[in-house]
């Protein structure tokens, strides 16, 4: 993996002439986990999509990219709310999908190691239909890890999971994505409070940085300072909306 770059965005996005967000300034420090917290519809996902180079029909005015100036293309991995597993491919073949799509030889041994790290080595030859929702999202995480990109964009990847699986996935992701520049979009104050090195509350016209507790993520969900901080974030969400 190449060194993880910091990300920046400065500008505004419009859709059909109507403002989506901004003008605002966003930075995600290199090799850390940045949470973008906000209610639905304030353009959090739009910002991620702009970084990923995906067309969402919005017009963006301003600048965005990596601080090191090199293009972001081929340095980004994306994890969405839906696991996007291909039902007809085995778990292993889903993990090596990226190589298959680039016409490269899949590194099966590494894929099996990655599957072991997410605890699914025994399921490598199963089809996704045989897995639970939590297991499927772990396969999606394995697929993301397999890409080995320095920048990882997470668009509410755990929001469809039950509370227990969500916590497990948060711990696992924090461990396995450490050292990468991660930007996670979420509408869940508890998740932001657990995961973020840097937490930004987004509303249509501004980003408010809320300094998190001094503990290192993933913070314990029941630690008093995490809970107080979570309340603080929720309060801010209520007031800005």
């Amino acid at each position, binding site marked *: 993996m190449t060194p993880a770059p910091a990300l920046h965005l400065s500008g505004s996005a419009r859709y059909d002439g109507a403002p989506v967000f901004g003008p605002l300034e966003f930075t995600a420090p290199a090799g850390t986990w940045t949470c973008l917290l906000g209610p639905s519809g304030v353009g959090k996902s739009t910002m991620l999509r702009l970084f*990923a180079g*995906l067309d969402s029909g919005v017009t963006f005015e301003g600048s965005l990219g990596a601080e090191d100036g090199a293009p972001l*293309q081929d340095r980004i991995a994306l994890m969405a709310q839906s696991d996007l597993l*291909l039902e007809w491919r085995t778990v292993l073949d889903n993990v090596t*999908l990226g190589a298959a*799509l*680039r*016409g490269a030889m899949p590194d099966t041994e590494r894929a099996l190691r990655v599957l072991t790290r997410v605890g699914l080595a025994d399921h490598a030859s199963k*089809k996704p*239909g045989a897995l639970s929702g939590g297991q499927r999202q772990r396969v999606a995480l394995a697929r993301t890890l397999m890409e080995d990109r320095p920048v990882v964009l997470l668009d509410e990847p755990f929001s469809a999971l039950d509370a227990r699986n969500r916590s497990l996935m948060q711990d696992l992701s924090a461990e396995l994505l450490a050292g990468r520049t991660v930007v996670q979009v979420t509408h869940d104050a508890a998740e932001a409070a657990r995961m973020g090195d840097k937490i930004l509350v987004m509303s249509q016209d501004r980003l408010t940085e809320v300094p998190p507790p001094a503990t290192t993520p993933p913070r314990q969900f029941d630690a008093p300072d995490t809970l107080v901080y979570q309340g603080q974030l929720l309060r801010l969400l209520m007031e800005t909306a």
Partner: protein
Amino acid sequence: MIGAARLLAAGILVLAIWQTVVWMTGVPSFLLPAPAKVAQTMWDSRALLAEHSVVTITEVLVGIVLGAGLGGLSAIGLAASPLARALMRPMLVLSQAIPVFALAPLLTLWLGFGLWSKVAMALIIIYFPVTSTFFDALMRTPPQMLELAKVMGATPRATMWKIRIPAALPGFTSGLRLAAVYAPIGAIIGEWVGASNGLGYLMLLANGRAKTDLMFAALIVLAVFTVCLHYAVDRGCTAALNRRLR
């Protein structure tokens, strides 16, 4: 099993109505022969029926294979290329405005009295449903999957073969199911217009000689074949689709 039982019940019901109509109206045999007489004819003429069935069945199966192949390739071409879409789609729609029946004499003129004019009829009649159902499915790949592929740096060709086509296979099989029902129609029309063998030819021949019982016999063989083909394709498609998800 339940499907087969229902089919059998429906068949018995039709036979009962048929026999009742013959008894109650006393209609002459050359207009509407009784089921028993048709059954007798089927048995007596089994060699003749078999000989002509083989011809029609061959036409239908070759037509389905070629039509499904061509239709599948066309759908992939249309889905892959916006230029092909712009050029071909109006032509496809226009081609549907021409009644296939009207083409049959031309095809016979061009391809002769043999197998190929009937294969061409069957092919033409199934080409559009196969192409359009598969094409629609190819254009409905979940956009998030295409975005994931884009972020992964996928080539368009790999995206087509590894994501879009496998995801659209259920659409292709719906086209095949329609083809199984339509293809026999095409083959029979072809045989009516010009042929020296086949069930359609036999029906015309029997009709011309007032052998209505033989005509019914040929019709029943055709219907049974079409139903069997429909079930075989339907079961085959369902099994294939299920197996790849297990």
